[in-house]
């Protein structure tokens, strides 16, 4: 599992005063989408986490993304029936659902975590999904569980 921050924070330079960038973590199965670096989306600090199979995702990893200050988490998996490892995407779906339930109980909101099936290499749809997530986030607002005091991000 490789983690790469694709876009550095451009926080205060977005031109809209001191509204910080929205932080988005994208976990993507390598087969669904190998690389997000081609995307250029302003106002967004995008973390891309590449997985050999979406089934590698443990619930705690999704939660830790929120602990680290992500405002939303998107999981991109292969369409049902075409997982190279048979049921990897189905397992990922179940885990996402369990974490969504937890997020709701915590009070952060289950809508901040979403899973999408993506046809292989369909970067255009991936971009649409990310942009839509950001648009929805503008209404929902930032992660209500702020970063710990002393953190550089916020």
């Amino acid at each position, binding site marked *: 599992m490789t983690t790469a921050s694709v876009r550095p924070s451009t926080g205060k330079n977005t031109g809209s005063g001191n509204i910080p960038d929205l932080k988005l973590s994208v976990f993507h199965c390598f087969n669904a989408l190998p690389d997000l670096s081609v995307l250029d989306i302003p106002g967004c600090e995008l973390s891309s986490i590449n997985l050999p199979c979406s089934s590698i995702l*443990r*619930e*705690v990893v999704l*939660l*830790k993304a*929120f*602990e680290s200050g992500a405002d939303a988490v998107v999981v991109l998996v292969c369409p049902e029936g075409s997982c190279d490892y048979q049921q990897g995407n189905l397992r990922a779906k179940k885990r996402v659902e369990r*974490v969504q339930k*937890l*997020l709701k*109980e*915590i*009070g*952060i909101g289950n809508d901040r975590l979403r899973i999408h099936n993506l046809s292989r290499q369909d970067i255009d749809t991936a971009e649409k999904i990310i942009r839509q997530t950001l648009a929805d986030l503008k209404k929902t607002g930032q992660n*209500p*569980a*702020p970063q*710990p005091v002393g953190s550089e991000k916020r």
Partner: protein
Amino acid sequence: MIVGEQKPLGEIKTNVSPYHRLLILGCGTCVKTCFAGGEDEVATLASALRLAFKQEGRIMQITEQTIERQCEDEFIREAAPQVARCDAVLSLACGAGVQMVASRFPGVPVLPGVNTTFLGVLEKQGLFTEKCLGCGSCFVHQFAGVCPLSRCAKKLLNGPCGGSRNGKCEVDPETDCAWQLIIDRAKAAGSLDRLVDYIPPKDWRTSYAGGPRKVFREDYVI
């Protein structure tokens, strides 16, 4: 295995709120197999609690450790260093493990994070069902291998009640009528006629009704 379910997050959060340095102690045996309190569940719960407290502007320090079993000193000892550094332990073991940990660390609040339910099996993917009451004098062979004490809601020993319908129990239409199961198995084994025999009342002394029980294997003590 012993089957249990993790308590709802809200309940756990309320119970641990008075503390500041929490140790979540998992168990690698029964509760791990029913997805209630193993290492993964400990990690998920720790993260969820931290997030939940953060949301209220509070930092809750949480450490995590999972030991093989919480019903044996040999493994509980491994948790001693972590226990010493916390002000409360949230144990995800079954009720037996929680109490054992509590008794080994007097003075440290030990809170249960799992609701222990029954002695059961993994019937099929995701489904755990109750099978044994722990009556202390097993007689399932008299019932074609199906226990009427744990699986019949009325603990009937001499045949089904009038509420058995389509092989299901009147109490819960998704629960099999134990007596239907017993009769079907007896029929298949050609021993249906044995079910005419009068089964006398159960002696409950060997069960929990006789008081908390113990088994002492002196033959294993050095």
